[in-house]
């Protein structure tokens, strides 16, 4: 419409959010927070997709976003279920305590 707000702005915001999420995944030790950061990354991609779709006038990107939201919800559900089950046995949700494998 007015054209002042370009796609670049959206993409910059999306990529910064993606990187924030990635940093969180790499740095945090709490599995709950890692899962949240993964969600952040997926959301960043969603923003980029919608922006691309809007600026090229193509619907497919938005539909892909729709599926991405579905997938993210499913992943979170499974992740939390595993986390709870693991917590019952190991009493910890920190990565440094989850080290049974590879010893």
């Amino acid at each position, binding site marked *: 419409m007015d054209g002042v707000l370009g*796609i670049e702005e959206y993409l910059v915001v999306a990529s910064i959010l*993606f990187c924030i*999420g990635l940093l969180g*995944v790499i740095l945090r030790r709490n*599995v709950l927070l*890692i*899962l949240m950061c*993964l969600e952040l*990354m*997926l959301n*960043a*991609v969603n923003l*980029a*997709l919608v*922006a*691309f*779709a809007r*600026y*090229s006038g*193509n619907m*497919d*990107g938005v*539909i*892909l976003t729709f*599926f*991405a939201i579905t*997938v993210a919800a*499913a*992943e979170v559900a*499974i*992740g939390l279920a*595993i*986390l709870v*089950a*693991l917590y019952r*046995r*190991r009493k910890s949700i920190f990565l440094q305590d*989850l080290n*049974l*494998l*590879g010893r």
Partner: protein
Amino acid sequence: MNDFKLYAEANDWGLLVPEISLAFGALLLLCREALRKQGRESGGGLAFLLQGGLLVYFVARYLFFDPRPDSAGESAFNGMIQQSFPADVMRCFFLGCAFLTSLFANPGLRERRLPQAEFHALVSLAAASMMLLVQSNHFLMLFVSLETVAVCFYVLVSYHRGSPYSLEAGLKYLVFGALSSAILLFGIALLYGTAASWSGGTAPSDPLSFTMLEQFVAANSDSLAVRAGTAFVLAGLAFKLGAAPFQAWVPDVYQGAPTAVTAYLAVASKSAGFVVLFNLVTGPLFGLREFLIPLLSLVAIITILFGNLGALTQTNVKRLMGFSGVAHAGYLLVGIIAAIGMHPDVPEKSVFWAIVFYLLSYSLASYGVFGVMGVLAPTEDADQPRSLYSSLAQKQPFLAFTLAVGLGSLAGIPPLAGFIGKLLLFVVAFQAELYGLLAVMVMGVVIAIYYYFAWIRETVFPPLPSLDSSDKEPQVLWSPQFPSLLLACILGLLTLTTILLGFYQSSLGQSF
């Protein structure tokens, strides 16, 4: 609304009979489980029947009714999927894997009193979505089916929920998987965005479709965004393959997952990844060959070295299989690179045949080895030191023979199928003039001989009588069980096929 009518009419569900039957079979299993009376065991009989029956149907279809399909491939579901003969072969392959997995897992589930119906339902659903994955011709379809496979595997890996090993493996797999799917999605978004807003030519009307992307990528092969998108997509797929840079999860998850699931993960999930990668690099991403070849070569080298060097020091055989699985992924990547290198000149089918044959020999051998491991596994099956196998040949010659043939085939010793697999890969790599990669491959194979052979040695050769008789260690009273008759027959069949394929495989290859 005419276009929508056209769209709707293009959905020919008849093409997907095997997938649909698998999905409904899974639903049936779940319903029966929900309505089941208290205290009655629900076995996997229905699942075996379903998967085995479909396999027979599929094979019979090609042997008797439709022996020479045109492999040109036909697009269906508005370009969502593309069916072709290679894809059909892979569909049979996944059905076979699912059947073997269900069969191998059943005794363990019964012994640990874990729900069986859900397990078989999940295995079937994973197989159905892998079958869709190899047919997908559209990034949206690829993403959705890839994620369905992943979610099935998250549950399957952590299925031994009484074991912290299994749960920990599931969590690690999930974190890595979610990370890689975010990266994959980012890559898809970049490709989509640049294609949709392509100003140089007519932007493709469906920028997620492989067919339409091909032309765009070829015209924009030096665009940074296209390359970054491709790299992200490949990084996301690398997780499925267990290749660098997403290989770190492999040993841990292979160790922690229930043994049958490890086999499924090692064979089916990896194969699906490779077929998708093959479709991508010879299809939509082919325009980037100058960029892809060095990138993938680097990945292949790191993967081969990581896998083989990592495996050298392992004494836990499940971890060892994990590391060696990474190494095998590296060899297969060499085949993929050869496919890119030769794509327009040589009919891609011959390269694809090399990859498929390698996958086939790898899966036969892996299922043999994992089958034996499953039979011998202690209650905590993440804990399998190599010493568990010492003098197996004296106690259970059949299992030892199966194991030795499987490991020999994985190591690529002639006259087993694995050798022919490696030979075919060598030939295509030579044809594509990948001399450096070949050198790395040969090095990897030699290192691999060491650790596979050490395991065979532990199994087959009698241990040395200890020199000083004073420290007579109390011999563990471990008498391995002979597997059930059905399982033994299947293991014998796998071994036999591994040996026979070393001698005769041509009529299979000619169909390609």
